[in-house]
């Protein structure tokens, strides 16, 4: 069992969830409520990582992260560090790859809230912020939970993108999925089996805990 690889995977999945949740909330809500020109284009862009092969996404990110590329150069001048072969790099890649998993469930949840409910809340004297906290968030909670669970589980299993931009550095970019691949290549089936079981268990527990929470809430309300 490679604990460093597991900890890299967990850190990556945790941070991806943490950073994508507010972004997903804002974007999902905006896409659900606003009718602006170019909304379809926005939705298509958000969904793009879903239909793009991970290696293709990894290839483009690797290009963009390079110190010669505009994005990589700008990052370099801002932070003084590069992105390829670093944890920050795979975290950024993971944020891009998981965008649809975080945004889409939240957007669907916001779309189910009838507009007159929000208007009724405003008429009752709630500010937009209070409306969001007290009325909307409890209603979109199952969507949030799905977004979190999907993002976490998907990040744990992410392979192609991480392989392209990561460089399999121990303790930094070598995730458990990559470690499993290496073990299989080295004909260490038992090592691969132990780590695979671990990954399966962690994924299952995550989803189980999250759905358990969501289920309890639904049951209490129902």
């Amino acid at each position, binding site marked *: 069992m490679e604990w460093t690889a597991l900890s890299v995977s967990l850190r990556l999945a945790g941070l991806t969830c943490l950073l994508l949740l507010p972004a997903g909330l804002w974007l999902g809500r905006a896409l659900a409520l606003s009718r602006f020109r170019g909304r379809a284009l926005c939705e298509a862009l958000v969904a793009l990582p879903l239909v793009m092969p991970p290696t293709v996404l990894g290839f483009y990110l*690797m290009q963009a992260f*390079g*110190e*010669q590329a505009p994005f*990589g150069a700008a990052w370099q001048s801002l932070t003084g560090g*590069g992105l*390829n*072969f670093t944890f920050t790099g795979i975290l950024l890649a993971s944020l891009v790859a998981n965008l649809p998993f975080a945004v889409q469930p939240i957007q669907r949840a916001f779309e189910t809230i009838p507009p007159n409910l929000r208007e009724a809340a405003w008429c009752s004297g709630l500010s937009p912020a209070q409306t969001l906290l007290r009325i909307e968030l409890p209603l979109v909670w199952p969507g949030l939970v799905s977004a979190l669970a999907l993002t976490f589980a998907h990040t744990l299993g992410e392979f192609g993108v991480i*392989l392209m931009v990561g*460089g*399999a*550095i121990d303790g930094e970019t*070598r995730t458990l999925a990559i470690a499993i*691949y*290496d073990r*299989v*290549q*080295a*004909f260490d089936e038992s090592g691969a089996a132990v780590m695979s079981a671990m990954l399966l268990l962690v994924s299952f527990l995550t989803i189980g805990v999250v759905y358990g929470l969501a289920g309890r809430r639904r049951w209490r309300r129902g």
Partner: protein
Amino acid sequence: MTAVLRLALAAWLLASAAPALAGPATVAVASSLQFAFPALVERFRAQGGAPVRVNYGASGNFRRQIAQGAPFELFLSADEQSVLALHQAGHLADTGVVYAVGRLAWIQPAGRGALPSESAPLAAVEAAIADHRAGEGRPRVALANPEHAPYGIAARQALEQAGLWAASAPLRVMGENVSQAARFALADEARGGLVAYSLALAPALGERAEHVLIPADRHAPLRQRMALVPDAGEAARALYAWLQGEEARAILARFGFQPPSPSPTPASGA
């Protein structure tokens, strides 16, 4: 729609289950031959050889796929072990032959600091370690994963022999196979990498890279073995025979592979 899918699936199954005799030779080729092999196939075809279907990848991966019944007829490995192990398990017709001896090279992006000399080929690794210790960034050193890639094992041996293995740890990035390692070696963040000499000589790298050959005594010899599967078709057998000829040797030499030194084939019980 489903009817179309079913048809397509049936066609695909038929195509993949077609006997080896009927069509082109299907070959599994180690990634160190990524550039040499197309040149070999081109000559083979020019002399009336059958079409060849090539798959490039890590030798260890092919070893696994062939053991699981992947429909390859000929396997060109980057090491001997993969072939010998497959033969022992009964997946190959015989122990095959050594077709080439590979060499290791240091490659770096053109203009990324001084190119090491033949006598001190790892000077760039030492420079990268010194830079890192002086707090001047983290210039990466790429190699194939020594856990399973033959060229990765050789790279590790060369670094260990020079006493640089531990010191280079914070700088190392691992390619899944030697081609990916070469790709990493030429990334903006890298000082360079230790890869197959055959990749360093590739026209595709052209102006982007410069290289220096690592002396053969810095690592165990990279003897590359190939063998046929028991039910290989005519086309694959013809290719296998042609690859052992003079012309193939000359092409391999042009891509940085040395001819195999005449040595007895290991007994099948070995």
